[in-house]
């Protein structure tokens, strides 16, 4: 089934690049607008566990890369096959200045906090997300703190270093 996944993906979607690695990892690169469709396709073809939504800031290329990591749950209780060891890594590249993506909550419900987190820490806007409010942070930052051009050491010196001791 997994072998057919590659051909199926390439046949169904335009502009999708699939690469395989021998350790069981499959990399799928898709354009931003087809992400929900590809995710739905993958889900229908057995990859029903969205383990992680992550984001990488490739500052030199000027791109933010959003990564969806998919694996399978078991079909039955004796199902310990190589298929379970399969990881599919779906990624898409977005321009750093105007990073926007469609929300996938309709397909994987547990993507909701992940998308909120990426919105907060990387500044990617997710269209159709019901509550893009801060998840972790208390104060606002000019640059979302996980981007590579946010220098946390400089920031710490500027913010916390400026606060004087109370009594000496």
């Amino acid at each position: 089934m997994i072998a057919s996944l590659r051909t199926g993906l390439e046949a169904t979607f335009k502009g999708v690049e699939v690469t395989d690695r021998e350790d069981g990892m499959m990399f799928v690169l898709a354009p931003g607008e087809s992400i929900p469709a590809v995710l739905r396709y993958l889900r229908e073809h057995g990859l029903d566990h969205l383990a992680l939504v992550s984001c990488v800031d490739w500052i030199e290329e000027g791109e933010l890369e959003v990564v969806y990591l998919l694996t399978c749950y078991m079909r039955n209780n004796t199902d310990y096959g190589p298929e379970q060891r399969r990881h599919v890594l779906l990624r898409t590249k977005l321009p750093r200045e105007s990073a926007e993506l469609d929300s996938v909550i309709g397909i994987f419900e547990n993507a909701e906090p992940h998308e909120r987190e990426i919105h907060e820490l990387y500044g990617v806007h997710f269209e159709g997300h019901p509550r893009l409010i801060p998840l972790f942070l208390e104060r606002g930052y000019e640059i979302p703190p996980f981007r590579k051009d946010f220098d946390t050491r400089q920031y710490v010196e500027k913010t916390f270093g400026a606060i004087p001791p109370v009594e000496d």
Partner: protein
Amino acid sequence: MAQISEIAGSGSGRELELYFGPQHLGMVGNFSITLKVEGDRVLKATANPGYLHRGFEKLMEYRTWIQNFPMVCRINVVEPDSMEMVYAMAVEKLAGIEVPERAQYIRSICLELARVSSHLFGLWAYSNMLGFDTPAQWAMYHRDLVLDLFEELTGGRVYHIYLWPGGVRRDFPKGFRDRIVHTLHSIGGWVPDYDATFFNNRLFYERARGVGQLSQEQAKALGATGPVLRATGMKFDIRKVEPYAAYDKVDWEVPTRQEGDAYSRIWVVRDELIESVHMVFKLLDAMPDGEVYNRIPNPFKWRIPPGEAYVRCESSRGELGLYLVSNGGDKPYRVHFRTPSYPHGLTILEKALEGASIADVGNTMISLYVVAPEIDR
């Protein structure tokens, strides 16, 4: 008894906003839930994390590969060893380091001991929440016995920094094997007492039955793993699905339950605890002699070839994954931990608390095995 809860509900007769945590005796960890309450019923629950956010993944980008070892274990204070394990595995995968056979066994033993201590902590938290003070105190004492083992092995009670890329930091000290066996036997001897006071107690059944119930379909859709998923009847365990360390070398069972409520989750935890103890005995018997670590290059000049890896292991709370990207430098380019409490504490908790009684808020949260620092990172 619906009428009585309605009477209890009409006591105040209006909607209240109630903050459960962060400063709350029923809250394990620095976490907060905002509850919209009518009388004794929760109408809507909103998880409010971030009290423990330190930006770990950002900080790790500023530290070299080896400097990150003291960092990773601090993400989850309850079970730091699986954090070390997953980082060591990812680094080994990217750098292509082999691990000696004996080190694999020691790693497994270490992780299982950590699981025992973590489950005992969970048992403390859960029974303390319900007001079962006596078994709670015992569980905390027995956890301390396991921590004593760790202290002897690694020098630290809580943070061990023991699992190392290329193996483990040092071999077992002399006579350590007997002390493990002795400690685990003395904990095992208390299992009948735990059963009598807690697990077979009728009141535990009444408090936990039907609380935070999830069907297997719901659990899968919401990304549940670990005891939460196994309590719905699926034998999904990374140790079996994608064996690492020495878990494929010994024979063991994955305990499950069918109902998917707090009661079955805590029973799964109990069964796992016993299974882990048995597994340690089997691993100790099968352990070969030999080296315990392969030398790594000079840590100050250590560069790891570019690439990305997703590795996962089974912590006591579920699937713990690490997405690691290297750009060929001396520091990681991007680290992202997939922690099991993340879906449990944010998505599932909000779902499970809708319509629950206030008496069951902490009950549900702890039975979902949520650890706050794992969520916030």
